[in-house]
């Protein structure tokens, strides 16, 4: 009974959202998909296994909740456009990125609908999804600040990793062979602590910690291959030089791995991940065969010096342009010259972000 009531309520919510004027064609397609599931469950509920009805109802409810931030005019379209482009370079899946705005200044994170349940719905109800839905959250105050939204590339990296399983695969095939010291933090750990068989619980946690760190390195590198150093630079400014924790490597180690990758220096973390990505690519699980360094950045100086948007003409510059603009902002903030020397720091920051937004929007059009 409860599942049926929830189904009726969520069905009403789907109809309400569908009537919102700000939706895109893709979102409407996805809503139709959800509506088809709800209709089928209502019509044939008594013939469908109760466990599947409950799981499907939760799936629909979660997906509907994703759209709460997408119904307003507040979507940072330019950033979402860039993220979609980055996502399509890695996966063949038809993804749909929605955004939510968080009141938390550190509120960068991502969620995605449960692909396992989606798979079960497809097999049992014979209803195919129009897209895989991804929701990315960013702090509301950065909504019109594309240069402060670079952590979203990192979050997208987590999505790619979660759906494909690079880090877990790495954990199974590298960590289990006691090659713990592939990751930087374990260089400094007391090896006697870890090799004590009486400390099984600790060893279990060690592997979990290893996997967590691996996830963060992958997400950092995923971001770096598009927006260069600007991702970890933002991290440093936001999080400071944080020490390693159970869930995250130290900021220092994260920056080192990204810098080695960007400068082409040999690095065991980068090599291990490239090795794994290549295996998944050969198995047609991912489009890219390895982490690629960002394309040569365009020279934006002459345009930005004259407070004009930069004309992005090449898709490969779409992301590397963001790194250049970030550098430009940092330099101009510290040492304003030319027309910028007449402006306050706040105006410099908002104007450079505005130029970035306009440059991307012009490319989109």
């Amino acid at each position, binding site marked *: 009974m409860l599942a049926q009531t929830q189904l009726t309520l969520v069905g009403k919510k789907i109809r309400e959202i569908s009537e919102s004027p700000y939706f895109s064609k893709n979102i409407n397609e996805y809503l139709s998909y959800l509506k088809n599931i709800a209709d089928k469950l209502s019509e044939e509920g008594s013939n469908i296994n109760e466990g599947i009805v409950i799981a499907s109802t939760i799936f629909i409810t979660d997906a509907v909740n994703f759209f709460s931030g997408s119904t307003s005019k507040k979507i940072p379209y330019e950033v979402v456009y860039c993220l979609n482009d980055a996502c399509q370079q890695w996966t063949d899946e038809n993804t749909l990125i929605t955004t939510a705005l968080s009141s938390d200044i*550190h509120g960068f994170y991502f969620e995605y609908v449960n692909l396992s349940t989606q798979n079960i719905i497809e097999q*049992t109800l014979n209803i195919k999804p129009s897209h895989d839905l991804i929701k990315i959250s960013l702090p509301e105050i950065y909504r019109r600040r594309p240069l402060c939204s670079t952590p979203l590339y990192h979050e997208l990296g987590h999505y790619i990793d979660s759906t494909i399983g690079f880090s877990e695969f790495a954990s*199974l095939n590298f960590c289990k062979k006691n090659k713990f010291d592939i990751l930087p933090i374990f260089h400094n750990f007391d090896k006697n602590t870890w090799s004590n068989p009486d400390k099984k619980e600790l060893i279990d946690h060690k592997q979990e910690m290893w996997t967590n760190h691996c996830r963060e390195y992958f997400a950092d590198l995923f971001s770096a291959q598009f927006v260069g150093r600007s991702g970890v630079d933002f991290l440093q400014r936001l999080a400071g030089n944080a020490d390693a924790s*159970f869930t995250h490597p130290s900021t220092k180690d994260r920056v080192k791995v990204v810098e080695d990758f960007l400068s082409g220096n040999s690095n065991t973390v980068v090599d291990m991940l490239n090795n794994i990505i290549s295996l998944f690519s050969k*198995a047609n699980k991912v489009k890219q065969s390895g982490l690629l360094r960002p394309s040569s950045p365009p020279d934006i100086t002459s345009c930005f010096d004259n407070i004009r948007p930069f004309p992005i003409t090449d898709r490969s510059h779409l992301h590397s342009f963001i790194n250049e603009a970030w550098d430009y902002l940092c330099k101009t903030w510290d040492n304003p010259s030319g027309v910028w020397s007449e402006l306050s720091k706040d105006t410099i920051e908002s104007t450079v972000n505005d130029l970035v937004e306009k440059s991307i929007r012009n490319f989109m059009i």
Partner: protein
Amino acid sequence: MLYAVPQNEAGSLESIKLILKLIATNSDVPDSLRMMAYDVVKEAFSLIVQNGEMLEIPQHRESISLAMEIQRTHGLDTTLSNITSQGNLLPQSAQQVLDYI
């Protein structure tokens, strides 16, 4: 999250848990789902024993998470090793696996 909150990968095993729950409650489970659960178990064991020089990528994403779970949960491997065919996926064996994951 960028630097503070652990990532949650638990969702990767949700479909397997759901299929096992259906089997455990004697529900009418479509053959395709039964087959998937069995394949995931088989692939997870292959992942655990595979040689570092000849790594193979599993068909199902869930197999990687199940292999991780086998590694960290004492006794799960023994329980899963009883599932040697699709026909072995009976309510009792499904419930035994669910007790671990």
